[in-house]
């Protein structure tokens, strides 16, 4: 169970390689990686603001909730803040479990909660100006399935 909130980028290959390495009690590893996407509106960069006094704890609570609901061998959450260029990594989640259904469901649960319950706010700076990303109705709906 690891949570890292950082401005620096991370090496997804190294993180995945190191995660649950050589553990023969774990049959399934799922990872999710979020990437800054340019949806064709000339994104210059994304700015991620967060609430430093709250972020780490809020994410650890979400992770603990996942560990209660599913049989997990391990989990890892990395979330960046600060300015990010298109194509850069924003965050990643990894789950390891004896069975694939647990690993998949826990990863989706973590993502749904990170989207709407971890104190991050994204702003997009495009060639036409800047705007805060609005929370989506569907992201709030996604929480209701858990």
């Amino acid at each position, binding site marked *: 169970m690891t949570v890292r909130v950082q401005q620096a980028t991370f090496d997804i290959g190294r993180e995945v390689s190191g995660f649950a390495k050589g553990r023969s009690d774990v049959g399934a590893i799922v990872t999710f990686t979020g990437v800054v996407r340019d949806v064709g509106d000339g994104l210059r960069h994304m700015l991620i603001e967060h609430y430093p006094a709250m972020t780490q704890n809020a994410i650890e609570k979400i992770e603990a909730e996942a560990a209660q609901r599913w049989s997990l061998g391990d989990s890892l959450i990395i979330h960046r803040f600060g300015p990010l260029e298109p194509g850069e990594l924003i965050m990643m989640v990894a789950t390891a479990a004896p069975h694939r259904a647990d690993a998949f469901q826990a990863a989706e649960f973590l993502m749904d909660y990170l989207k709407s319950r*971890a104190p991050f706010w994204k702003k997009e700076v495009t060639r036409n100006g800047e705007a805060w990303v609005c929370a989506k109705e569907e992201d709030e709906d996604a929480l209701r399935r858990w």
Partner: protein
Amino acid sequence: MIDVVYFAWVRERIGLPKERIETDARTVAELVAELRRREPRYDAAFADVSALRVAVDQQLSDFDASLAGAREVAFFPPMTGG
């Protein structure tokens, strides 16, 4: 005395990230009402509280929550992590 912190467009609209306030407000809603009376920029930022979220001492909370013993209140729009 209570620390009030703002994030994202709430911070931008109010024009500062954090302030220390002398208040007798017993709930978040009372604190909001008090802030709105201060200046138009506060009134604008808090005009639609359904568009806002609040945390009391770094725990997600709601506008009815008590401020008894609270040290920090944060106001921000719905989160967009992940």
